[in-house]
């Protein structure tokens, strides 16, 4: 039974303490830099578009001008002199956090802010082997973030800028890019609440969340009810300020009932879904606001204990959100529209798909690959053998699609775009390639791993009949 007492730590953890995201508490004396007013007159002419966007923004209304965000100290690594003013082109979460303290703190250490480090181990294989350096700036880094550098000649390094990747490593050392979702210079709340805010990165073969959402009942309801979504509302509490549909922001960040809004977008995710094998994850929150995930199979550290942070330094554990609590937080959002049984049963369907993927495909494929590497049947170099592409796509593309499809209720992505392709890949590409690579020991190797897994028994029944493939008694028509 989930009691209120168990819920309380979530509220504390998710913690803005307000149900709709934080108000700026700083005194207005802190903005409205007079030097910034001079910028506007010229920029209305030299870059009319962004100036108009700013003029229409809540920032302009509150008197926040160019210099409030772009001001810099001369010795900042990315400071430049522009028309006599010392400014920085890149506005980092640290800059935004001068006023938006709560949001900055929440996004710090989130899966978004750490989007560069989460792919650090994959990058060399992708950038050096499969593609080339040019793809890093135009591809990877546009979602995950670049490490922005100002060259000594005063120009931003074109291999790192322009960039609004969500985990961008900024010259001031901060991580993240608020403009990734709140497009500059309008910084619209409505824009960030709409599903389109996430599309640039959450689409395509490996994380087709745009497609999944659009193909789900939630997506259909959003299109039909967009006019009633109240996207511009100051507070945006699901079930109170809107009820037409949830968007990405609703479930992953939004306020719902007593659940406060958060800018830690991964907080409510119980599983990691973009891994060869999914595992439920603890969320460790450190004293300095840093965070990391820890697989459920590893015992969660106690409060006050020390453990390494993602960057290798030691951190003091302030709080641990177990996967169950993270799930509970997510479910609270569902409950604004759905009954308890409905929400929990939906989660059960989702979990079952993840476990099916794990047990039937993810785990045996991972074990077989490990064995091929340890037996030196494959070179250690990634992607120099066809089976490496096959395995990579099995979990990273179709495997992720199936899991995301189930997580967000798109039957098409759970099955045809997802688990069906996983199965096709596994049986028709992966296993034949294992046979090629492993040679004589292949049958034994495959049998051993498939026997350990579940769901492959059917391979031992060669006489099953299938009208759909033309074997057995096909029925004519639909009678």
């Amino acid at each position, binding site marked *: 039974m989930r009691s209120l007492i168990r819920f309380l730590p979530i509220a504390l953890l998710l913690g803005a303490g307000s149900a709709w995201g934080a108000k700026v508490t700083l005194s207005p004396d802190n903005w409205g830099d007079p030097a910034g007013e001079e910028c506007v007159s010229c920029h209305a002419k030299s870059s009319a578009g962004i100036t108009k966007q700013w003029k229409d923004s809540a920032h302009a209304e509150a008197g926040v001008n160019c210099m409030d965000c772009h001001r810099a100290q001369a010795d900042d690594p990315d400071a430049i002199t522009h028309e006599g003013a*010392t400014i920085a082109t890149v506005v980092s979460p640290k800059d935004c956090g001068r006023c938006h303290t709560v949001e900055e703190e929440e996004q710090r250490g989130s899966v978004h802010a750490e989007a560069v480090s989460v792919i650090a181990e994959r990058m060399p294989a992708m950038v050096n082997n499969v593609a080339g350096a040019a793809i890093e700036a135009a591809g990877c880094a546009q979602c995950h973030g670049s490490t922005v550098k100002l060259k000594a000649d005063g120009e931003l390094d074109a291999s790192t800028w322009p960039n609004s990747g969500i985990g961008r490593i900024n010259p001031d050392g901060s991580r993240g890019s608020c403009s990734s979702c709140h497009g500059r210079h309008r910084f619209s709340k409505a824009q960030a609440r709409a599903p389109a805010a996430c599309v640039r990165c959450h689409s395509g073969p490996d994380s087709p969340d745009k497609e999944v959402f659009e193909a789900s009942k939630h997506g259909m309801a959003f299109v039909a009810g967009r006019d009633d979504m109240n996207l511009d509302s100051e507070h945006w509490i699901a079930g109170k300020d809107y009820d037409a549909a949830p968007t990405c922001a609703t479930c992953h960040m939004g306020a719902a009932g007593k659940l406060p809004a958060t800018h830690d977008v991964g907080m409510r995710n119980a599983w990691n879904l973009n891994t060869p094998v999914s595992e439920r994850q603890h969320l460790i929150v450190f004293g300095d606001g840093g965070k990391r995930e820890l697989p459920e199979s590893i015992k969660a550290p106690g409060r006050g204990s020390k453990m390494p942070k993602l960057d290798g330094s030691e951190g003091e554990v302030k709080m641990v959100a177990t996967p169950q609590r993270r799930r509970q937080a997510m479910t609270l959002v569902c409950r604004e529209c759905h009954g308890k049984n409905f929400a929990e049963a939906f989660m059960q369907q989702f979990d079952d798909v993840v476990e099916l993927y794990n047990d039937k495909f993810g785990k045996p494929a991972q074990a077989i690959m490990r064995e091929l590497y340890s037996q030196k049947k494959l070179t250690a170099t990634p992607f120099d053998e066809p089976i490496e592409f096959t395995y990579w796509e099995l979990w990273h593309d179709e495997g992720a699609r199936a899991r995301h499809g189930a997580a967000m209720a798109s039957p098409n992505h759970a099955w045809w775009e997802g688990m069906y392709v996983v199965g096709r890949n596994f049986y028709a590409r992966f296993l034949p390639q294992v046979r090629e690579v492993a040679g004589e020991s292949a049958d034994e190797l495959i049998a051993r791993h498939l026997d350990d897994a579940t769901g492959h028994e059917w391979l031992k029944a060669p006489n099953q009949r299938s009208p759909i493939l033309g074997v057995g008694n096909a029925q004519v028509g639909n009678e």
Partner: protein
Amino acid sequence: MSKRRFTLLPEFVTRHVLFAMAFGGVAGIGFMVFLIEFDHHTSTESFCTTCHSMEISAEAYRESSHYQPESGVRASCGDCHVSPGVFAATWDHFIGSKDLFNQIFGPDYDDPVINALHLPEAAFSAREWFRKNDSRTCRRCHAQEAIVGKRADTLAIHQEETDGKTCVDCHINLVHRKVPEQATFKREAWNRMIEKEFGLEPGKADELLAE
């Protein structure tokens, strides 16, 4: 009877004086012609680049829009770096002779590494010169009221947003290698960049500068 043949002239204008005046006049004209020619020739790219160090600066210039503009109106070294008017031009050359002194007795600017390490200070001082004289060499060709540009509001910006500003306040790094403004210049980063560019050991640039 007087020996004077030109009675219309005052008495003190003797023949010697006349000769002196004629000679002086011709010499004066000759001197002015010399100055004009001198200023002209010492303002050309071919003269400036007789020093190898200037050839290094000219490489970037030859890639710039001031060397190869669509209009075909080429600005050469002196068009930007020597003031208009013979007296001002001569003065600039006089002052500029310190560059010759430094070329001979100063650091080895002909060495591309030394040249690049010292470039920022040269850029700062050139910009200061433009600022002090209200970018007058820019204005030799560019009339501020006629800068229409290709973007929608270029004319309006140059009419309405330029109070208290001179060309070089906004337009730097047009011709030569890019250097940040002095206020935000970072010597440390510059040295590391030059070391990387020329394949030098870290710290070598600081040594070279200290020499």
